[in-house]
């Protein structure tokens, strides 16, 4: 077992892990941050996306020991401490961008990374960016719409959610 220490959502976190322990497992099982979900084992679905040192990564594809000393952000840190939803979270609710909710944490974290790099993405840019995030419920219509809305763009011309 190896001890790892990192900052998670602004707070110091540490624990003992095996060399093979995935970051997603460490977050879910050692830190009880179960908002990060695991939907596949081939790095395709994106339900496990978190930010490591400001970069979106699939936490099922990174070892916990690789995050030693890193600054990790998960879905649990997205809303304000008083519970106010972030602009992205609020847009997902406003535009019905989620149904079962399982892919949602990864969608929100990927969106945050997209809008950081590209504050006003086109519809096509949003769709291409989401290649690594699978959703089985929404047909993506309202997810794409919510992301465009979260970026401050007018979505009133897009069919109703």
């Amino acid at each position, binding site marked *: 077992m190896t001890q790892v220490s990192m900052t998670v959502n602004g707070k110091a976190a540490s624990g003992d892990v095996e060399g093979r322990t995935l970051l997603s497992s460490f977050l*879910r099982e050692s830190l009880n941050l179960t908002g990060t*979900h695991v939907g596949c084992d081939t790095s395709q679905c994106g339900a496990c996306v978190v930010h490591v040192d400001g970069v979106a990564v699939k936490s099922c594809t990174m070892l916990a020991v690789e995050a030693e000393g890193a600054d990790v952000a998960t879905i649990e840190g*997205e809303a304000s401490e008083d519970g106010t939803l972030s602009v992205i979270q609020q847009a997902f609710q406003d535009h019905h961008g989620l149904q079962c909710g399982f892919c949602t944490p990864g969608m929100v974290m990927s969106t945050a990374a997209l809008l950081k790099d590209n504050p006003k993405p086109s519809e096509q840019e*949003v769709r291409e960016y989401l290649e690594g995030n699978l959703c089985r419920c929404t*047909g993506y219509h309202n997810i794409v719409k919510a992301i465009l809305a979260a970026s401050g763009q007018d979505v009133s011309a897009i069919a109703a959610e």
Partner: protein
Amino acid sequence: MPKDSGIGAAPKRREDVRFLTGAGNYTDDINVHGQSHVFFLRSDIAHGTINAVDTSAASGMAGVVRIFTGADFEAVGGLPCGWQVTDRHGEPMQEPAHPIIAQGKVRHVGEIVAAVIADTLEQARDAAEAINVEISELPAVIDMKAAVADGSTKVHDDLTSNLCYDWGFVEENKEAVGKAFDDAAHVTTLELVNNRLVANPMEPRVAVGDYARGTGDSTLYTTSQNPHVIRLLMGAFVLGIPEHKLRVVAPDVGGGFGTKIFHYAEEAFVTFASKQINRPVKWTSSRSEAFISDAHGRDHVTKIQLALDSDNNFTAIRTDTYANMGAYLSTFAPSVPTWLHGTLMAGNYKTPLIYVNVKAVFTNTVPVDAYRGAGRPEATFQLERVIDKAARELGVDPLALRRQNFITEFPYATPVAVEYDTGDYHATMDKLEQIADLSGFEARRAASEAKGKWRGLGVNCYIEACGIAPSNLVGQLGARAGLYESATVRVNATGGLVVMTGSHSHGQGHETSFPQVIAEMIGVDEGMVEIVHGDTANTPMGMGTYGSRSIAVGGSAMVRATEKIIAKTKKIAAHLMEAADADVELKNGTFSIAGTDKSVAWGDVCLAAYVPHNYPLEDIEPGLEETAFYDPSNFTYPSGAYACEVELDPDTGKVTIERFAAADDFGNIINPMIVDGQVHGGIGQGIGQALLENCVYDENGQLLSASYMDYAMPRADDLPFYDVDHSCQTPCTHNPLGVKGCGEAGAIGSPPAVVNAVVDALQRGGKDVTHIDMPLSPSRVWSAMNS
């Protein structure tokens, strides 16, 4: 103006906040103190005789608690099948035993051979690698037609053949249908495949078994669409646990689409093993396991024929279908190609004579069962494809041919045993023509052509039977369960309400939409109503959510229970206002007596029920809690018309969806935002089936499409925005809300629209291609173009 509360309003979903903040409570988020972990060693051989399962090296490894093999389950019941189909000769279907852990033989890749329980999952997995399994491989039975040919290897040695049943419907009509074909002016024939799919809810299945030695109670936490059904099947048929000693909890569930209806071996295993080792046992499926253990969907091979008279009226339909059951009968598998498929073959059309033959076949593949739509997409696809082909052969407009043959008078008794209560197929087609801007197609086609692309238009209709289902009817058809739904409405002393429903939400938003109905009926704020579901310990016996039944059946039960509450509160209010019961009105949360200034608030009446100082104790009991079980008198029949426009790249065969429009008639609508979302999701899955998804076995029974690397799930850049409309509303006549259900429509209606559009594009491009089997991948399209 849209309403801001009650029926027809679109409040934001209350469940979203927890899902958006990572605070959902999915089954894998549940960890029971002291739990162990199980890893299932699964067969990597499709068909073979088990010679030995040697666990001696594994059992002493670090952390291993116990290893179970088939021998440990010889005295344990197998998984039951919930539907018995009777074949066309009056004989029951062949029904093989379905063991929890393989007994003597393995029959599909993924079947459980051994189960290792250890302190950690990693230890269990390590130990499983040390188990030595010796299997003598037998020829794998994969192709359905070969499977029922003479001399085929048998999947089950104790059955007479690989034919589960040979079903004819309506058998009495067979000769008349044959004569109609003899007399037809034109016959169109189409052979097609409805491709095998994997449902792929984003949350893999999870099961946690927790036996409490002190009380002898067992609890199962599981990713289920119907926890009561799991409790009944597992308790009564597999493990012999009375229901009062067994609790099944399905908390937040990350999508179902049918594949979480069924009772699976892993659920029974963790419940059984937890008692054996006196310790909780947890199993979390990997996606790789899901592909080889979740029930698959579709997988029909069909020949359909449509007979028309000289005026292009449909006179008869005849179909021959082979339906894959896989290696064992999953919970509701036999019903899918029969009663959920044959009864829909009339579609939206007044075809007087129909005969459907279905041969259900055992193969060495994962069991096949209901997937979103379940039988109805298969019916719709073949019908709407053969009509399109007929129109092309006859040189008539496919829309006009459909309109000419529409059913226009309701109720309408089809020749396949169901009676449509309401519908207006011309209205939905009119709406579709408008929202899809069909009149603008030619200009868009010309613009595509100028870019070197071939543009095609595909249109189709659909009807489905949902709101499943009248218990007495399905009982006659072979169901071994009732299909009512239940609700208990509990009013608290301060006026808030809790609805405990047998319906289950795994993405459908019941926590938001069900309170809208209560708010409408009583006039209280939706925020005063809480929905409880998913736990057999605190909900009445219910059948769960599938078949687009939640609002039509579960909602109706809630309405009936609420009506009982209202009747009782009116009695209390009458007493408080010293008036007659019949004179009391309830409006906006206030009881009043017409023509007087007497009134009493909802909350005061509720308080009186629990503090009955001034109360008619001689007439009614204290308290406010009512339960209703609602058994529908008919199915509901949503219908609609869909249009798809594609662009086809003639150089590569790649198809892109440029426009997709859906005009649906769901009857009355509770929450239009949620309804739109349901349709979007269904269309996404339907386009996935049409263009991308395919479950592929090789001749040895190896699943080639066993991960997201190989199974093409639809991604955001594969799909367009959709234009959806449900303003055409012909309310259901036999349930109290006039609702029909919307969960499956998109997946039922969309595949034929896509294929019709691609064939149209090819024809416009000068290619004489009349059909391509799904998925319409670039290679398949290019090959068809160039063959």
